[in-house]
């Protein structure tokens, strides 16, 4: 072999080695001391052993107008593809140890390359963010680069699942890439996201606030609804991503994998017959029903700490992934408010985009009343959920468990907005409003004129309850396809999903609808 060739191999080896340890041992040590893993370690955990294939190992920035001296192989981001439980995914992982993971032109081009490829081959794209933000030295090139990423996020939306893991800072315009993606994971204590940071907040509004309080994982998990999942550390976060992937198809042409957990499809659960309390004002925990019916009692809840009056998440029925939307009577009596409508609406659209059947479990007393909600746009937000359910063409099944009152009943995947099959438990109450409100409206004069108005109210309420607080009137009209025994819910749902397996529904020809965003 000639000398020239050997030297070339050596050069390649040297450059690769540089890229493997681009930030240097000291930076890596600091990263670890902060409780964070390096970009490569994260990829290693996320993907199957030995499956990672890297692109653009040698890519560097072209230097900057400011005369930035040093360039780094890889330019602060590691990109490529590998497998999760055998299925290909694309990944980019920002390297905080290399110029703070800051995003410049070359860095962004690497990300765009894998995004393009992911969309073309139909594989999920997973971004692991840990970046100080735009590389200021690159000026408008850095901003342009962000725009390119946003553009691809939007183009890929609904084509392949896009997942963002926030494992470090993410500030300024950079937040909008994760915001467009389907699911945002945040690591507690080490990640934060905000449009303007604490120092700007202080200058503009004179408020003192920490990065954690402004945009930490818990803030976004509880208050803003930006984060769909949180994890205690990087290791658990990446494990959770793998788990989420197991529920999803790789792209919008596929169906989700069928997972056989050996949970019998005809399993009945007698406990469900006792779930609904005898007193209609008492609450119960909807999770009992959810964990009872799903395969292996496995449920991956989305935004578990945000708008807890509605529960959204993935589970499996007969091995097939379903998107579950359930009112939670244990929180705010399960009403729909602005946050709940937004949370469920976005989830429903994700499921529809990726061929995941929707199952709704309904116990909704109505929309949340009050000026806060009205002025906060409950009309706009409630319309999102209504639109999302109505628009969805995947199999849609609804089970009315207890209350189904008024407009909120219609919104919650009712027969009237064309869900495929609508079941009700015998405890269902399908009516325009609750007995008290209804009795007060219908019998206002009688109650007022009565010797004992309270007793008269009670009497009228009882009458109303006997007439309407049951599923039988709706069943007579055909609005309910069947009144089912609670214990049979699982087997009825699975049977119905079988029925709907080959469902085809096409909307009218149009560019796209105009969801009330």
């Amino acid at each position, binding site marked *: 072999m000639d000398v020239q060739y050997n030297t070339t191999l050596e050069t390649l080896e040297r450059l690769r080695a540089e890229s493997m340890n681009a930030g240097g041992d000291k930076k890596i040590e600091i990263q670890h001391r*902060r409780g964070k*893993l390096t970009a490569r370690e994260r990829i290693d955990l996320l993907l199957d052993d030995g499956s990672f294939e890297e692109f653009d190992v040698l890519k560097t920035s072209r230097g900057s107008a400011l005369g930035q001296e040093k360039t780094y192989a890889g330019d602060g981001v590691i990109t490529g593809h590998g497998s999760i439980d055998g299925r290909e995914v694309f990944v980019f992982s920002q390297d905080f140890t290399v110029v703070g993971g800051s995003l410049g032109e070359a860095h962004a081009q690497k990300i765009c390359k894998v995004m393009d490829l992911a969309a073309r081959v139909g594989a999920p794209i997973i971004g692991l963010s840990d970046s100080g933000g735009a590389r200021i030295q690159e000026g408008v090139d850095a901003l342009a680069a962000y725009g390119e990423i946003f553009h691809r996020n939007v183009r890929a939306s609904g084509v392949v699942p896009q997942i963002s893991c926030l494992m470090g800072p993410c500030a300024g315009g950079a937040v909008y890439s994760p915001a467009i993606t389907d699911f945002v994971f945040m690591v507690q204590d080490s990640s934060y996201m905000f449009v303007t940071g*604490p*120092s700007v907040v202080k200058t503009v509004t004179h408020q003192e606030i920490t990065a954690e309080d402004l945009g930490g994982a818990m803030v976004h998990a509880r208050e803003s609804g930006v984060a769909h999942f949180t994890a205690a550390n990087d290791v658990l976060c990446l494990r959770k991503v793998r788990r989420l992937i197991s529920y999803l198809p790789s792209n919008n042409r*596929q169906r989700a994998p069928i997972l056989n957990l050996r949970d*019998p499809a005809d399993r009945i659960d007698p406990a469900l017959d006792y779930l609904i309390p005898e007193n209609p004002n008492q609450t119960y925990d909807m999770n009992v029903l959810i964990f009872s019916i799903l395969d292996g009692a496995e449920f991956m809840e989305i935004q578990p700490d945000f708008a807890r009056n509605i529960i959204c998440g993935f589970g499996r029925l007969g*091995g097939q992934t379903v998107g579950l939307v359930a009112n939670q009577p244990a929180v705010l009596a399960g009403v729909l408010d602005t946050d709940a409508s937004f949370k469920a609406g976005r989830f429903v659209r994700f499921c529809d985009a990726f061929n995941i059947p929707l199952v709704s479990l309904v116990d909704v007393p109505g929309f949340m009343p009050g000026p806060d909600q009205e002025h906060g746009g409950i009309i706009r937000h409630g319309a999102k959920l209504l639109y999302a359910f109505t628009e969805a063409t995947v199999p849609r099944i609804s089970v009315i468990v207890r209350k189904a009152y008024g407009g909120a009943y219609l919104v919650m995947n009712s027969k009237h907005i064309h869900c495929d099959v609508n079941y009700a438990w015998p405890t269902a109450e399908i009516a325009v409003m609750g007995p008290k409100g209804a009795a007060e409206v219908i019998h206002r004069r009688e109650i007022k004129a009565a010797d004992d108005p309270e007793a008269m109210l009670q009497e009228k309420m009882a009458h109303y309850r006997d007439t309407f607080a049951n599923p039988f009137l709706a069943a007579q009209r055909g609005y309910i396809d069947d009144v089912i025994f609670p214990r049979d819910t699982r087997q009825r749902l699975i049977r119905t999903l079988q029925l709907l397996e080959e469902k085809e529904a096409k909307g009218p020809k149009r560019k796209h609808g105009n969801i009330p965003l």
Partner: protein
Amino acid sequence: MFDKVLIANRGEIAVRIIRTCKRLGIATVAVYSDADSRSLHRQLADEAVHIGSAPARESYLDSEKIISAALNTGCQAVHPGYGFLSENARFARALTAEGLVFIGPPPDAIAVMGDKIASKELAVKAGVPVIPGHVDALKDEEEALSVADSIGYPVLLKPAAGGGGKGMRIVETPDQMSEALASSRQETLKAFGDNRIFMERYIQQPRHVEIQVLADAHGNVVFLGERECSIQRRYQKIIEESPSPAVSGELRRRMGAAACDLARKAGYTNAGTVEYVLDANGGFYFLEMNTRLQVEHPVTEMVTGLDLVEQQLRVASGSPLPFGQDDVKVEGWAIEARICAEDPARGFMPATGMITRYAEPRGPSVRVDSGVATGSKIGVYYDSMVAKAICYGKDREAARTGLVQALNGYHIEGIVTNIDFVNSVLCHPVFAAGQLNTDFIADHFDGPRPLEPPDPRLLKLSALTATLVHHVRTMVVREAVRPMISRIGTDRDRADIHQYGVRCEAGSFDITLEKAPAPQVWNISVDNEQFVVETPDFEFYRRRLKLTVDGEDHRFRLRIEQAHCWIAFCGLTHKFEVYTPKEWRLLAHMPERDANGPTNTLECPMPGLVVAVPVKKGDRVYRGQNLVVLESMKMESGVAASVDGIIADVMVSPGQTVEAGDLLVRFAEPREKDKGTES
């Protein structure tokens, strides 16, 4: 014999009595409160009568309602079970006055045995040894000191009324007397409206041993061996057995004869129990006589082959006992564990909720007396005991290991129970050796956990189970996505050996799984110790798993929680974190998080009724100060502040019912907040 009997009770004992009645062809009438309208005892009885709202005072303790229910349904007799009205002489008299039979002793016998002084006097007359002590209530401190001198320290101050250890004080030296006497009086006055206090010698390392007697109206009295009930928590029995490892044949005869003498002296009929305290030298002293069927009667039934409820019914209907003392044979051993809806991790506070899954252990030597089923709701109104698990064996060890196995497979979800706690007692080496005394729990446990480290082998079995579950569950995903994977190239994941790093709070383990050639068989090494494990087909929804480890069957209960797996086995309950080698290596960089960080809220530790809120918004409160007073399971207790602070908001008000975990009080944000710095 009776044709129809009303059972004035609820829960497992009502169910148990109904079962015997059914076997004997006796019709049954159950009574139930609002809280029990869907309960098992109501469903099983031939008829059921609603007797009022949930609080016991308005239902199960309302003798008028129960008597009229019995009359209206044409019952001839009433079985009171235990608790509620079972030791209420007035109730027994009222029944008799209405021409109904009270299935229990004559009212006078109940009355005399219900009085601590009278019963002790009677015992002395019957020649039954009593603990050295003073027969009169103590007048004052001066008398207390002189009496104590004559009895000898340590002494026990004991209130005349009540039970359950309320108002009891141990005094070891004369200088403790004043304070102990005062607080004892105060406590008993508050609890029972009676401040009479007695004194007796305090027996150290005492065992609680009791004799079951059975007497008919024809003068026949027999005893059915003894039961040892030394394992108690706060004076509540939790594990009982028969016979007692501390009682020889000769001692049994003496204790039994004394018990029978007392029963005769009292004019006793029906089933009763004479409780003794047994000291380390085989001396036994009369404590009290329980004039009813005991909770722990099944252990006697299992070693004697008798049905005590059947005997109660026969005796009450006037029949003579069909056997004499010489016919009573005690064979083998039986141990019982009480299963209570209480949360060991929260100081054994009562737990409530709906039982969402319920599976009892089964087997030829296992008996479960239960008042619940799937769908049962456990509320705050009654005793927290939901069931009893009893196991029979040819000897004590067989009964013990059988019960341990049974509890490993006893599956209750939806409510928290003490199953794993009682199992950890049964698995404790000191218990296994039969070295019992009434301080056992206090001496060997810190809260719910044994003081000694867990048996390493049991821990390893738990760890390997968690690892196996994790591994198999992971493999299911691999299999599921196989059809979606590129078929180009070869499979890269064909390893037969899988390594894991596993940790729980009791330790870390290196675990290697290797699939053996035989189906469902694994060679597993845990820290280089080898196990051959045979698994069933994994059916994760069961959350119960039977593994055959080195030829022995073991049952595990499991719960997968996020990324981790809880395993309950032989009293050990641990959350196992199972990691691949690369995860394990990188885990070293992950910060340890304090799960119970500073909290500025006070959560309700148990379900109950808010009785009082002695603080208000803006109050400055101190750690340990009671902020809310709750009533739960008939007990009032305070919920103390966990921090010093200023109250920002009180979220509850008196009269409100609260659940465990409900927010009671919010404190103002701590002023000195740890300000994080921006990186």
